[in-house]
């Protein structure tokens, strides 16, 4: 499209230049009265027929100042100012060529006697135009028409849904985790999903969240053949409020509640046998934390067709505190049959999961 425009301009420029050069050689140029009809044809190429009268007339009016040549306006350009040409020709008293239906008050030369003459009606002016391709013999066929490109769709960049992989590390206040080699640290790995539910303001958004995390910690207690294992799994529901400080920087507050499933195993390996004890507990918990989400700019991944406009990735770093229930554990031997001697279990005590936590989530929003 752009190339076509340039080509047309170039052609028009060449034509105008040619016409100007011919006029400059002193040939009579019929006054060209541009009318509304001619305006439409102004973009058409100048015909040879129109050029002929120009070459025949310069001798009669050579002494007269030539009216300026009527330039053919290019596509999209403004038109020639016709009354100027008429005024100049009236000033020199030349006899205008009766080739256009003029409504501008063209006057007869003052030297002519006021004799009522019957004259043949003036011939309709021959407009100059470019020849159609069909009028030109052996012309090349018209180039194929290129349909213009459809307009680019503008899709929504809103990303209400978030999916994340989370690593969490907790610091419980209970030294009982030393049994599992934890030294009061707990690790979890999991997933969570959140969906925006309310845009409280253009920058503040409330989202609902659900997630799961778990871990399996093994240890050799007291550096002996006593193996301990603590398996944790937790399900939670929560809500978070984030503030869009910048498109790529969003602090947030989060609250969640859920349950933790703990399974404890202790295996004592002896010379000829091994005994395994186990117990389980389900503990409720409530966590409160705050963090910052760093994400990619809006529409970074948007395709030309507008797909993936809402896709963004980011990292959420969050810290907080968990209030959890206290679980009681006892040593219950596994693989105990009714034929064995009655076994009385020993209470291990209570395990408290309350403590601070740090979460790092790799978030995908779309």
């Amino acid at each position: 499209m752009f190339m076509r425009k340039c080509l047309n301009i170039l052609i028009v420029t060449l034509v105008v230049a040619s016409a100007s050069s011919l006029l400059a050689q002193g040939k009579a140029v019929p006054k060209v009265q541009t009318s509304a009809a001619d305006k439409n044809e102004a973009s058409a190429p100048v015909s040879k027929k129109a050029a002929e009268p120009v070459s025949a007339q310069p001798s009669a009016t050579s002494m007269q100042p030539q009216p300026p040549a009527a330039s053919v306006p290019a596509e999209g350009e403004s038109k020639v100012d016709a009354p100027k040409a008429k005024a100049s020709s009236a000033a020199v008293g030349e006899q205008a060529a009766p080739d256009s239906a003029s409504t501008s008050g063209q006057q007869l030369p003052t030297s002519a006697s006021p004799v009522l003459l019957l004259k043949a009606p003036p011939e309709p002016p021959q407009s100059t135009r470019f020849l159609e391709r069909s009028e030109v013999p052996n012309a090349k066929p018209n180039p194929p028409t290129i349909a213009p490109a459809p307009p680019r769709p503008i899709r929504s960049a809103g990303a209400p849904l978030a999916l994340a992989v989370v690593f969490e590390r907790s610091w419980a206040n209970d030294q009982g985790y030393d049994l599992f080699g934890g030294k009061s640290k707990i690790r979890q790995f999991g997933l969570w999903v959140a969906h925006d539910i309310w845009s409280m303001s253009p920058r503040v958004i409330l989202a609902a969240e659900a997630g799961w995390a778990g871990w399996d910690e093994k240890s050799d207690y007291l550096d002996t053949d006593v193996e301990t294992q603590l398996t944790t799994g937790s399900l939670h529901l929560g809500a978070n409020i984030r503030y869009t400080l910048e498109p790529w920087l969003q602090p947030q507050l989060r609250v969640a509640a859920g349950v933790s499933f703990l399974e404890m195993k202790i295996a004592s390996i002896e010379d000829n046998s091994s005994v395994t004890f186990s117990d389980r507990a389900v503990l409720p918990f409530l966590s409160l934390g705050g963090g910052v989400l760093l994400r990619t700019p809006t529409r970074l991944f948007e395709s030309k067709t507008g797909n993936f406009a809402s896709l963004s990735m980011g990292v959420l770093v969050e810290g907080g505190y968990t209030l959890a229930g206290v679980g009681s554990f006892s040593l219950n031997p596994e693989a105990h049959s009714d034929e064995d001697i009655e076994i009385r279990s020993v209470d291990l005590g209570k395990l408290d999961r309350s403590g601070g936590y740090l979460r790092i989530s790799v978030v995908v929003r779309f």
Partner: protein
Amino acid sequence: MAKQGKLSLILLGSLLWLSAGCGRTKDPDSLNLMDPVALDKYIVYIDKTRDDAYLLDVLSKKSAPGVKTIELPRAPSLLERRKSSAVEELLVLCRGQEEEVGKPSQSAQLAVLDSQGVNRKYPLKSRFNALIQSEDGSVAILYFDESKGDESGGDLSRRNEVAIVDLASSPVEQGAKPNPVFRQLDSDDGSAPRALVISPIVSVVGQARRLAVAFFQGQVSLLDLSHLEEGRKEIKIPFNNLIAASPVLFTGSEPSANANEEDVPATMYLRSEQTDDIYIVDLPPATESKANDFWPNIKTRKSGGVASDIALYKDVQTDGASTTRLTRLLVVSQQAQKVSIIDPAGNVSYVSLGFPANRALIYHAAAPFDETIAPRALLYNDSSAVSMAGMGVSGTIGFLDLVRVQERGAQNLETKVLTEAFSPLLSLNEQDVALVYKKSGVSLLNLADRTIDPFKIGGLVDVVLDPLANNLWLPSSPGAPERIQLGFIHVDTRDPGYVLLDASVQKVIPVTSGDEQRVVVIHPSKVGYVTVLDAKEPKRDTAVSLQGFFLADVLD
């Protein structure tokens, strides 16, 4: 871009930190348990590493067994039951924490543990490594046993120092009567005592006294434990050969309040480990100013061979119308295969045995041919059958009637040849002894009838006498796990029985509290595993196992 790069590094580091340490983590402190012992209704384990005592209530009927953890002074190294029938206490020798850079030091202590906890602690100046008690459990002496190696950790210590502890009194650090009392036992050769013995209360110079006998390389020292506060020095008795520290016999009763009763002064009997000398040490009053108000008078007798064992017995000597009770000394010589009988006058009689006995058990009972209760001796060999291999027999025991043995000699001897050698011999009561055959069984010997009842059991682990229940416990592990059992024999009825167990046996401990009598089988386990059975009627149906008690309340 620089900011994004920094952020990426921070996030990557956080992820690595979160996932770091995957896999196993280890606690450097391990349990280092001493052999468990009984204390009232508890089984007590001492953890050397954590300085804790775990008291497991085996008589509890609760669903979860009660375990008490008692904190002890630093570095417990030795555990003994106090030899007292009046109280149930354990003596725990704690060596303290030697001074190190960055660690607080703690002096050594002797902790007395009862069912309620640490009752009292006796502070010690040095990190002793050995302890000995009197037979009645009223006095204990702590000393350095050089045979145990250097456990002092390099501390500057006086190796001939001893601590005398009055266990019946509270600790007193300063004052007129400190408790413990620290003394240095000097020797002519500069060596430390290799053994210590505490005498019963005997009459010395008309007073009831208790003596400590310290054995050096070429010397025996007597320390008057009844006059420590007066600063009386010990009495050194030089010997030109090595004196055996076991047994050390004393005669001489405690002075009686009844003036009509004759006061028998104390006499001490010692044997040489290198010669056939027997030393009879009297303790008459000192004739001149000495370290103490008595001074030893030593008489030497020849036993005809290096003495393996000595024993005292009282004999009645009839001289016409008068009868005299005499204390005679029986000396057994494995080397000479004979026994010697030494009377107070120093007369020695010999009886040839014909087999290499090295132990003598004096008993008073009838005989198959004599219903009279009289002193007799069971002579046997308590070692392996190496010395008897050349004789072609695996074991021989002898019954020696001691009445008129000087006259009758070998006529008073009756020998029995057993099928195999045994070790040890356990005295069950006045009438019965048990002969233990390693890994194969026991034989119960009735001393009066001189009959032997053999009991066979494969994979014998241990033989434990339960005097209150009058049972002999015989745990065994024959190889097949399903055949692990606790065998038992009623001593009176000789009825055997067994109870199948679920795990191998490490030790068997009788526990008695009031009318409750239990037998506790200790199984090898790093978290604790015992099986408790009724001692009177042991059955699998009524047995209870307690497992994992070392982890009791570990989360708290």
